[in-house]
């Protein structure tokens, strides 16, 4: 490869990385909220699937991507409400309920999809890239950063907004306290359960959005298990990012890079590695990450524990 080709390769890689990172960014920033409030939602994978399906079905019926995205968020939150009810109100084990919801999400979306949509075989019109004038013509940078669709651009907004809410509002302050010392919050006169519900709603709403991106902004079809483990990778992203929204944004980009790399390497005829090995790259990196980033230093101390009121 000469230098020019390599630069083009790099530009395409970075652009693809951001696109592929988008569902991870939404889901992991959402999970940061949830976990900061002490709720570990391992049901992200199922929630994302529900979001992907609701988004697809709505866009299929209405032809509107915006409505599809809203349906993705709504579907995720509805699913999250089930999770919240069992883990916060009933105080069931978060891991068990999360695992159950993953299975439910997979089964439910596959069932409804097969029953109503698979025979149609039709896809939908997805969100188109928006070329930002002038900037998109820049060499290298244009391809990498300024030829994305609106959903991809919105990840920046979500990351900034999440940071402001978490660190600059009374809501965010209380949320961070709830995962660390819920009793102090209770004594200060705030309802711990309400905050945990809110945190789970933010988390599953964003996970639903991340799922909806897969069908509305990436592929134009719903496929069974379309999330292919992104919900679990988002959980790893949160740990790597040390429970910070901005961190989650950049760590997601890193994982997006692995996704993009394996896709593009598969297309390189000169590389003779079985494509399965390349496909495993993002998952391998997840394991490596969890091994390298050890210690619970920044984890909310009441993560996964129900709060017992007096």
């Amino acid at each position: 490869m000469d230098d020019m080709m390599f630069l083009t390769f790099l530009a395409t890689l970075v652009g693809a990385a951001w696109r592929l990172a988008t569902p991870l960014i939404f889901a992991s920033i959402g999970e940061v909220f949830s976990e900061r409030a002490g709720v570990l939602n391992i049901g992200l994978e199922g929630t994302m699937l529900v979001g992907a399906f609701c988004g697809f079905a709505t866009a299929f019926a209405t032809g509107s991507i915006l409505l599809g995205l809203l349906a993705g968020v709504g579907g995720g939150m509805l699913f999250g409400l089930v999770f919240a009810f069992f883990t916060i109100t009933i105080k069931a084990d978060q891991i068990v309920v999360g695992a159950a919801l993953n299975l439910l999400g997979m089964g439910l979306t596959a069932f409804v999809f097969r029953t109503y949509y698979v025979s149609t075989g039709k896809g939908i019109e997805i969100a188109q890239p928006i070329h930002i004038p002038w900037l998109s013509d820049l060499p290298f940078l244009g391809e990498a950063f300024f030829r994305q669709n609106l959903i991809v651009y919105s990840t920046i907004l979500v990351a900034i907004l999440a940071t402001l809410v978490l660190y600059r509002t009374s809501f965010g302050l209380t949320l961070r306290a709830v995962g660390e010392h819920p009793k102090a919050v209770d004594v200060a006169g705030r309802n711990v359960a309400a905050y945990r519900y809110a945190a789970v709603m933010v988390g599953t709403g964003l996970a639903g959005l991340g799922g909806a991106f897969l069908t509305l902004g990436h592929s134009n079809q719903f496929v069974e298990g379309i999330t292919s483990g992104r919900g679990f990778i988002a959980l790893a992203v949160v740990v790597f990012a040390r429970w910070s929204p901005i961190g989650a944004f950049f760590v997601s980009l890193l994982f997006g890079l692995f996704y993009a790399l394996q896709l593009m390497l598969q297309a390189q005829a000169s590389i003779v590695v079985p494509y399965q090995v390349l496909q495993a790259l993002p998952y391998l990196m997840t394991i490596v990450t969890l091994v390298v980033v050890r210690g619970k230093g920044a984890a909310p101390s009441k993560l996964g524990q129900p709060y017992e009121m007096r």
Partner: protein
Amino acid sequence: MSAKPFLRIDNIRKRFGPIIASDGVTLEIDEGEIHALLGENGAGKSVLMSMICGMVRPDEGEIVYRGQSVRFNSPREAIRQRIGMVHQHFMLVPNLTVAENYILGQGSALKVINDMDKVHAKIRELSDHYALDVRPDALIEDLSVGEQQRVEILKVLFHGIDLLILDEPTAVLTPQETDRLLALMGELVKDGKTVVFISHKLDEVMRVSNRISVMRDGRVVHTVNVAETDARALARMMVGRDVGMELPRSPAAPGRIVLSVENLTCRSETGLPAVRGVSLDVRAGEIVGIAGVSGNGQTELSLALSGLLPVDAGRVVLNGTDITGLEPARINASGFSHIPEDRHKHGIVLSLSLSENTILQRYDQPPFAARGMLNRRAIGEHTRDLIKRFRVKSRDEDQRIGDLSGGNQQKLVVARELARNPDFILVNQLARGIDIGAMEFVMEEMLKQRDSGRAILLISTELEELFAICDRILVMCHGEILGELPPDRSRLDELGLLMAGKTADHLEQPALAG
């Protein structure tokens, strides 16, 4: 309004399941005084104060505050009425700053935080006024326990209070920090505030308070002016209880030294000095008691002896062998039995069965195990035998030990430790949480062990327990052994004073403070 007390607690009752925490408490607090609430652990001091500040709701009775009957459903409502409490376990969120902790739960949830400068300024102003040295932007997790306590006190002041309740504030402080806190209490009263201060330390209470109420078994038994009392009288009120049991026993016949402790020094889990150069010997065929108000290093002493806490200096010698700093398993295997203070933490595994609990230290030894497999029959037989001999009330040996009552759990721990044929038995709170019948039984068992030539060290805050079975009693205070007394009930006053940290030289003088 002037004749009425500032705060009046009238015949308050509160029970938690079978435990009666407040048994008709009546107490009056005057405006502008420092009122100390004195009593042993479990006397019901903290629960009473939690009811005043809205943490716990009373079952019966009335609280009259500034002439009006009040009922708080939450600490927030109490703070609105300008009553604030600093709990023994701090209500501070470690990953937030001081200022963030102060504004937690204030104002609307949707509020954008944009007035931190004002909050910081107000904190600095208060901090300067009381010389508390609190930095508003410090993270709680970076602060020492003493600093966190000042942050807690300032938090209550920040919210604006007239009545401040402090729950065992000095338990976690160094002597210097304690001095500083006691001075602060004086400052607060000068500013027109009223302070209620829970403690079980006589000397502190004598130093700062105007009046003292002594609590025992969920009741206020006396309220006295400091000027009209002395440490001797207070000690008597605190520990004086109906003299109970007389167990028949023969005089001890002490033999060789089994356990010898030389100059043992160690720190508590939080890193504060806890045991300061303790030396003692326990001989075969005697029971040596250690008396003391809890929190004076007894817990750390027993943990250090049994290998559960690192030893900073000194030696522990058992049967002529140095066992200092060995692993607990090695210490256990060398003829050392331990009946711990906190049996749920160090004594038993609640989710395991009785038989599994009886072999916790010997699961890999014959006859309980052979070739890496457990011998269920031998374990069952052994456990059934212990259950029968020690009258442990249980369904069978496979029952989960967590389902038994505290007394029966304790009996099984005692049975297990004695069955290991130890030379030395360390007991911390022999009769904690068990009923009279079981108590008498385990005490008799201890006397039998003594008569068969074992050496026993009994650490207890229950003086009755010590008087009933010990052959001599050492008194521990501030991590040191202050003196030794015979188990003679007529010398209760002397014992009480030693427990309060007043050594023999002080006994000659009349009341110290006042």
